[in-house]
C-alpha cells in the first residue's frame, strides 16, 4: 500500500494545475476574505459609536454630582453641560447632541427623603437608534443612584426603628448613618469588583471564549479550507479512472499487491495531501491573521486525517459512478461546490450554519462539510477538546466508511 502511496505522491507533485487549485486558490481566497474581515473589524474598533449628550445638572447635592461623574466616565459619551434645561434642549434641537439630560435641583433631597423624583431625558427624534442607546445608558446610571437611595433609606430606617440612637444628637445620628452607608457601599463595590457569583463567557471546560473577529476567523478559514479540501474528490476520482484508462491499473492487478492495497494506497496519498492542505492553510491563517488553533492539537490532527479520508473516499465513490476520468473530474468539482454551499463552508456569521436552526441547518447536517466545520469551530473558536468533537468524528468516519464501501462494491477495475 505504501508503495502505491509513494508513487501517487510522486505523480501528484508533478500535477501543477491540481496543486494550484488545491493550495494556491484557497490561500488566495482565504487571504482576501481574511484581510477584508480583519480590516472591517479594525475599522470598527478605531471608529466606535460616539454620542454627545447635553447635561443640565441643577442639583448640587451628592447624587446629582455622582450621576454627572458617572456620565462623564462613560467612554462613548461626550458630555456638554449647558447652564439651563432650555439650553440643553436647544442643543438637541440643533442636532449638536443626541439627547438632553436634566437632573432636577431637588434630586439629592428627594433621594435622601426616599421620595419619588425624575430625571428628564429629551431624545432627538431624528436619530432614534442613538437616542435609544442614551436611554439605556441613563437607565443603568439611574439604577446605580437608586441603589444608593435604597441603601441609605434602609440604614436610616433600621437606626430609627432600633432606637439605638434615640438619645444621640442629630449630628451624631447623621454621622452614624453616613458611616453605616459608607461601610455598606464599600462592601457593595468590593462585591462588584470580586463578585461571589460570576457571569463569565466560558465553555464547559472553563476556557474563555474568544470573541469578535477571532471567532469569525476560526469559522471562516476552516470553512474555506474544508471547501477546497473537497476539491480532492475530483482529483482522486480522475486519478483512479485515468489509471484504468491507460492500463496501469491492469498492470497493478497483475502484480502481487492486492486490489484493496491499490485503492488504499491512493486513499492514503490523497489523505496526506488533505493534511498538507490544512497545515498550509491553517498555518498561513494563524501566522497572518492570528486565527486561533485551539488547545487540542491531537484532536485537530485526528479530525484532519478523518476529513482527508472522507474526501478521498468520496473521490473513489465518484470514480465508481463515472465512465471516464474527465467525467469524474467534472463531477467531483461540481459536487465539491454544491456540498460546500449546502454545508455552510462560506462563513457569513460568527457561527457554523448547522447551529442556525431551520431547514438549511438540517440539510447542512447531511454534508461532511458541516460536521467538519462544526468540529474545527469547537476546537479552535471554543477551545474544545477531543471529547467535544467525538460526535462529528463519528459521523465523518461513518461517511468515509460508507463512501468507501459503496465505491469498493461498484468500482470496475477492468
Amino acid at each position, binding site marked *: 500500500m505504501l*508503495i*502505491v502511496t*509513494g*508513487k501517487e505522491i*510522486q*505523480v501528484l507533485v*508533478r*500535477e501543477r494545475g491540481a496543486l494550484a487549485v488545491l493550495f494556491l486558490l484557497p490561500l488566495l481566497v482565504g487571504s482576501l476574505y481574511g484581510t477584508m474581515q480583519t480590516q472591517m473589524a479594525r475599522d470598527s474598533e478605531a471608529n466606535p459609536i460616539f454620542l454627545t449628550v447635553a447635561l443640565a445638572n441643577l442639583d448640587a447635592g451628592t447624587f446629582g454630582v455622582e450621576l454627572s461623574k458617572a456620565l462623564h466616565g462613560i467612554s462613548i459619551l461626550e458630555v456638554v453641560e449647558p447652564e439651563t434645561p432650555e439650553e440643553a434642549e436647544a442643543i438637541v434641537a440643533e442636532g449638536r447632541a443626541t439627547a438632553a439630560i436634566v437632573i432636577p435641583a431637588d434630586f439629592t433631597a428627594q433621594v435622601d427623603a426616599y421620595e419619588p423624583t425624575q430625571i428628564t431625558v429629551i431624545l432627538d427624534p431624528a436619530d432614534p437608534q442613538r437616542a435609544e442607546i442614551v436611554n439605556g445608558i441613563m437607565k443603568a446610571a439611574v439604577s446605580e443612584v437608586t441603589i444608593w437611595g435604597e441603601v441609605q433609606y434602609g440604614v436610616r430606617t433600621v437606626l430609627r426603628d432600633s432606637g439605638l440612637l434615640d438619645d444621640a444628637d442629630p449630628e451624631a445620628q447623621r454621622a452614624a448613618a453616613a458611616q453605616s452607608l459608607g461601610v455598606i457601599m464599600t462592601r457593595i463595590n468590593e462585591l462588584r469588583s470580586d463578585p461571589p457569583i460570576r457571569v463569565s463567557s466560558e465553555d464547559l471546560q472553563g476556557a474563555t471564549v474568544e470573541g469578535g473577529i477571532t471567532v469569525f476567523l476560526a469559522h471562516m478559514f476552516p470553512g474555506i479550507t474544508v471547501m477546497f479540501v473537497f476539491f480532492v474528490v475530483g482529483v482522486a476520482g480522475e486519478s483512479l479512472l485515468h489509471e484504468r484508462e*491507460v*492500463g*496501469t491499473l*491492469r*498492470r*497493478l*492487478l*497483475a*502484480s*502481487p*499487491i492486492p486490489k484493496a492495497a491499490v485503492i488504499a494506497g491512493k486513499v492514503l496519498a490523497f489523505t496526506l495531501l488533505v493534511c498538507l492542505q490544512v497545515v498550509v492553510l491553517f498555518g498561513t491563517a494563524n501566522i497572518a491573521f492570528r486565527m486561533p488553533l485551539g488547545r487540542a492539537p491531537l484532536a485537530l490532527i485526528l479530525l484532519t486525517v478523518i476529513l482527508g479520508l472522507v474526501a478521498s473516499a468520496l473521490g473513489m465513490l465518484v470514480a465508481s459512478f463515472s465512465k471516464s476520468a474527465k467525467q469524474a473530474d467534472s463531477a467531483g468539482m461540481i459536487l465539491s461546490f454544491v456540498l460546500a454551499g449546502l454545508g455552510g463552508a462560506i462563513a457569513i456569521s460568527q457561527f457554523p450554519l448547522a447551529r442556525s436552526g431551520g431547514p438549511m441547518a438540517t440539510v447542512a447536517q447531511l454534508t461532511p462539510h458541516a460536521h467538519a466545520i462544526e468540529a474545527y469551530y469547537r476546537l479552535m473558536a471554543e477551545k474544545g477538546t477531543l471529547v467535544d468533537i467525538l460526535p462529528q468524528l463519528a459521523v465523518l468516519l461513518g461517511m468515509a466508511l460508507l463512501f468507501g464501501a459503496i465505491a469498493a462494491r461498484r468500482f470496475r*477495475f*477492468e
Partner: protein
Amino acid sequence: MPAILEVDNLVKKFGEFEAVKGVSFQVEEGEVFGLLGPNGAGKTTTISMLTGILAPTAGTARIGGYDVRTQMAQAKTLNGLVPQDLALYPTLSARANLEFFGRVYGLKGRDLKERVADVLRVVSLTERADQAIETFSGGMKRRVNIAAGLVHQPRLLFLDEPTVGVDPQSRNHIFESVLRLNRERGMSIIYTSHYMEEVELLCSRAAIIDEGRIIALDTIKNLIAMLGGGVIHVGVERADPTTRDAIAALPMVKEAVLLAPSVAAPPAPGAEADLHERAPLATGSVIKIVTEHSQQAVVSVIGYLNTHDIMLTSLEILEPNLESVFLHLTGKKLRD
C-alpha cells in the same frame, strides 16, 4: 522441457457473452509461444485470466505448478505482463516508473537499482532514463512499457500486442529484445498479436484463436504446412460439386472447396488492402484450392476451366503463411 504454463479448458463469461470458450494449451519452459487471432478473438481475456486480472468462469491453469484459481498470489510472482496499452505514468521518468513496478514485485535497495539499470540496457534507454515518459516517442514509450514487465525478472512474460502503433525501427528493436530475453535469459514468452509475420518471426509454436476458441495449435512450420504449397482462390461464373471434384483431382491440387460467394466478398470501397490480403473480386462462385505447388496448380486449373468452357472471373494466389492459414481455417482475414 517441463511446462511453465498448462491451460486447461479455460472459460470466461461476461453475463451471457462467452468471451473464451474452453481454451487449452501448454507452454514449455524457455519457449516463445504465439497467440494469434484477430481483435476480439479472446487473446487479451485469456491473458487476463492467466495474470490474475480476471477470474476464470470455469477451467483452470497452472503457472510453474501454481493453480491460478487457488494460488494466484504465488503464480503472480512468476508472471510479467506487458499490456497492450502504454501502462506507464507519463509525468514520471522512465527510471521512476521502473522502480515503482519493481517495488510492487518486492524489489528494493541495491537489487532494485541494478534490475532497473539492467532492463534499461535491455531496451536501450539508459541515456534517457531520467527523462519524463511524456517526452518520449511512441516507440520509446513501448520499450519502457516492455521494460516495466521485465524488471522483476519473470519466468513467464506475457506480451500482449506489444507493437501496436509502433514505427518499423522500434518494432525491430522490440523483436530483438524479445529474442534476446528468450535466448540469453531463457525467459518463456507468450506473444499475442494479430500480425502474423511477428508470430512467424518470433514464435516456435502458436495457437490460432478465433471467437474464443483455439482453432489450430502447432509449430509455425506445421501450421503453414497445412496449406501445402499455397492456396488459390479461383472465382468462376458458375461452379458445382462436379467441377469442384474435378479440380480436386488435378495435378498439384491437394484439396478443393466450394466457398459461398459472401465468404470471399470484395473489400469495402476505399479500404486499403494489398494483393495478398484482397479477396477474389468475384460475384459468382469461389473455389478454394489447397495446392502442393501453387504456380503449377494454377496452370492445371486454368487449363481445366478453358477446356470445360468455364469463365474465370478472378484469381488469387495466397502464399503459405499464417495469414493464409487463418483465412483457410476461418474464411476470415486476421485484420477484419
